[in-house]
């Protein structure tokens, strides 16, 4: 429903331009016979009814899709803001910002507002249309009842007592109804007018017009058009009726018109009595009616043809595809966010705003032949360039431009005869980012990634590379041949941003026993964006691409395991991309690796046998009654023949409120993973919690839910305690 209405709305707006043009023509060309005016309204009707059209370069229409239906995007987080495709700068500058404010959305789970609005609007439209149709039907029924008492004079002409102004009723077998009180003379002239209506088939055109009005009732221009159309019909009818008359007859006709003033002549199929033409105007029209000169007729014909061509044809849709060159980019090519799909077998590119002489390239995103687009093609402002393309395939447009400045740069490529979409939402974790370079960036944590050389090119394939590594957390997998254990190894982390290139991690070691001196590098689109060094062995972990600070752009959440032999510690990094560079967001660390976690405190509570868990950085407090837990432990120990004294002591009490209760289990954070909390992406740091009974008194797990604020600082969302292991 919403989609139908949207298409209709577009059609209506497009037709609105034509209506305005016709109104101008009517004003300028008053001498044209009125039946030409009716032809013009016919052109309008075609535009209102016909959803299809031919594209031509003569089209004056700004656009046939003022409101892009492709802005309605399903579900996925998209930064795409609905835009108005219009060549009028005014429209761009006023309506687009309005749409941005109203409809740009960043909540991952909310339905696209534009979608719900169009659905609702569609329902309103449907109701309005039905109402108008019912109105017409009701009126028709009433009229039929009224004219039951009509009496046939001859053929299809009836007189009736209850009729004041004459009208025509019926579409298939129209009947003229006249007032029974008319004199013979009056009746003759009025019949001249009414039969002219019938000869011109006005009863059909008015019905069609009303039907179109029912559909386009929301467009005020359509109401005006219908009103003027009805007027023109009346005047055209006067013309036709008076054409065969001698001049003195025309005067008589005018006198009859005058005496029936206030009694309107209506072609009745619908209840609308639009088309009020003043008597004066009609009389003048009849008296002044001269056969139009050839010159006028030719001009009229020309006007109709021009209007038809200009407004019935659609403009060849040209899109300005934007390519953002990030600050400091040294990439050979930067690609557009939007993707194009050619409708034909070639595509013509024009240099758009901001583009000078440059090399242009197509990157296939969904195409049969991926390797056919490697030749260099050059574009110059003013000289379009044409490329052979695969019809129906999807491409990003790339330009060979570097940006040494500190601000990102937008250039535009103009292309027609294509479909456009934002990068496909089907691919997971796809934010449709341009491929951008990623020079080094310092972190500011205790375990900083080292700042290295920037501008390093993508790594050569390393020896002993073992292809895509699984995402399993188990360290020291036996994929690595023993001799090559210390050589650099590459582990694929998946194609995070969906551009066809894998992100990967390279791990290498400097020395053999006893220190491993492990070295880990994270590569994103061939650019090293994060480094980590430690004296421990490293195992690659997994990388996820999620938006953790709610700004609509995804961050990289990367976990890995530094470890000694088989005992891993978990380490994590959250990397955020701003412009072309990557920065490390805040990570919570204790003073050393073993303390790698949030400052969680567990204390005895006020009530007997309660434990209070708090965490620095949040006001949340978890109060846990541990009586049952220790009773179970005691029973378990007794059943297995163990020593339950320490647990019994805990239950016996004797502790004061605020005394420390156990602590975070060894090795700090046991696991960091991604999750959601209240619909937001977040990370969950799971800590083991020990009771006072020592490291075998494993009370449970404390989960800290956190994400990041706009400044990249950790922001704790929730604290949870789980008893089970």
């Amino acid at each position: 429903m919403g989609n139908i209405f949207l298409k209709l709305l577009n059609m209506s707006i497009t037709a609105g331009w034509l209506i305005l043009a016709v109104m101008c023509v009517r004003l300028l060309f008053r001498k044209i016979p009125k039946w030409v005016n009716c032809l013009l309204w016919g052109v309008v009707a075609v535009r209102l009814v016909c959803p299809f059209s031919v594209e031509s370069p003569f089209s004056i229409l700004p656009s046939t899709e003022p409101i892009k239906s492709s802005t309605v995007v399903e579900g996925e987080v998209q930064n795409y803001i609905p835009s108005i495709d219009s060549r009028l700068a005014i429209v761009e500058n006023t309506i687009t910002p309005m749409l941005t404010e109203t409809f740009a959305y960043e909540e991952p789970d909310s339905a696209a507002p534009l979608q719900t609005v169009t659905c609702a609007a569609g329902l309103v439209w449907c109701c309005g249309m039905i109402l108008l149709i019912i109105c017409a039907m009701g009126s028709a029924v009433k009229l039929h009842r009224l004219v039951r008492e009509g009496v046939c004079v001859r053929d299809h002409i009836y007189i009736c007592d209850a009729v004041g102004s004459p009208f025509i009723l019926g579409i298939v077998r129209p009947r003229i109804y006249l007032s029974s009180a008319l004199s013979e003379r009056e009746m003759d002239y009025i019949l001249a007018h009414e039969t002219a209506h019938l000869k011109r088939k006005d009863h059909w055109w008015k019905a069609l017009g009303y039907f179109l009005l029912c559909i386009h009732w929301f467009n005020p221009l359509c109401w005006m058009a219908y009103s003027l159309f009805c007027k023109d019909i009346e005047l055209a009818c006067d013309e036709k009726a008076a054409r065969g008359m001698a001049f003195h007859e025309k005067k008589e006709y005018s006198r009859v018109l005058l005496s029936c003033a206030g009694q309107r002549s209506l072609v009745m199929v619908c209840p609308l009595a639009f088309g009020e033409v003043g008597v004066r105007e009609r009389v003048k029209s009849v008296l002044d009616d001269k056969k139009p000169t050839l010159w006028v007729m030719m001009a009229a014909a020309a006007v109709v043809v021009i209007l038809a061509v200009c407004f019935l044809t659609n403009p060849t849709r040209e899109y300005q595809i934007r390519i953002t060159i990030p600050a400091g980019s040294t990439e050979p090519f930067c690609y557009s966010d939007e993707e194009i799909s050619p409708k034909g077998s070639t595509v013509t590119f024009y240099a758009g705003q901001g583009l000078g002489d440059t090399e242009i390239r197509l990157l296939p995103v969904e195409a049969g032949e991926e390797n056919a687009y490697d030749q260099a093609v050059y574009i110059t402002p003013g000289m379009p360039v044409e490329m052979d393309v695969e019809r129906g395939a999807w491409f990003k447009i790339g330009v060979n431009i570097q940006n040494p400045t500190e601000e990102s740069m937008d250039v535009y490529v103009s292309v027609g005869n294509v479909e456009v979409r934002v990068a496909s939402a089907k691919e997971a974790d796809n934010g449709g980012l341009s491929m951008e370079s990623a020079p080094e960036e310092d972190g500011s944590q205790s375990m900083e990634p080292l700042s290295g050389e920037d501008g390093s090119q993508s790594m050569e394939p390393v020896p002993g590379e073992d292809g895509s590594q699984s995402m399993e957390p188990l360290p020291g997998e036996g994929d690595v041949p023993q001799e090559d254990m210390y050589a650099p190894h590459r582990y694929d982390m998946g194609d995070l941003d969906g551009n066809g290139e894998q992100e990967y991690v390279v791990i290498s070691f400097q020395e053999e026993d006893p220190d491993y001196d492990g070295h880990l590098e994270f590569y994103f689109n061939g650019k090293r964006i994060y480094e980590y060094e430690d004296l421990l062995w490293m195992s690659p972990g997994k990388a996820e691409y999620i938006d953790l600070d709610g700004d609509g752009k995804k961050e990289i959440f990367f976990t890995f395991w530094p470890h000694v032999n088989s005992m891993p510690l978990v380490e994590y990094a959250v990397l955020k991309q701003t412009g072309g560079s990557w920065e490390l967001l805040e990570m919570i660390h204790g003073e050393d690796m073993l303390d790698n976690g949030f400052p969680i405190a567990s204390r005895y509570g006020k009530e007997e046998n309660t434990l209070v868990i708090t965490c620095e950085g949040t006001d949340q407090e978890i109060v846990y009654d541990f009586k049952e837990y220790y009773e179970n432990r005691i029973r378990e120990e007794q059943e297995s023949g163990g020593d339950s004294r320490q647990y019994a002591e805990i239950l016996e009490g004797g502790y004061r409120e605020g005394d420390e209760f156990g602590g975070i289990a060894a090795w700090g954070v046991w696991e960091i993973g991604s999750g959601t909390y209240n619909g937001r992406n977040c990370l969950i740091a799971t800590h083991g919690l020990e009771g006072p009974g020592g490291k075998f008194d494993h009370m449970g797990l404390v989960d800290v839910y956190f994400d990041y604020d706009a400044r990249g600082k950790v922001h704790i969302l929730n604290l949870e305690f789980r008893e089970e292991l």
Partner: protein
Amino acid sequence: MAEIQLGVIEARYADMIWEHEPVTSSELVKMTAVEFNWKRTTAHNVLRRLIDKGLFRNDNGVVTAVISREEFYSRQSRQYVDDTFSGSLPAFIAAFMQGSRITAEEAEAIRRMIDRAEE
């Protein structure tokens, strides 16, 4: 007695009744079917109206006159044109129909314009 208004066709029907009265209503139906091509219900409706206006009387299906034809026409002063047409339109549409009645001055001006017009 107040003036009774009849439309042209109503008058023809009334004439028919005066000419043939006393007459049964079913006879009238046949006559109007021939003369006006009316349905039975229409004939009855118009008869009802004429009876309500006080012209005729229906006793057990026989229609007789209450006022004679001469008496009736002597009371008529003007022809009555019933503009009930506008009553069939929804009110909001009727609101759009103003502005077409002209004043006497305007009518006079237009009449002069017509008279003076030359080819």
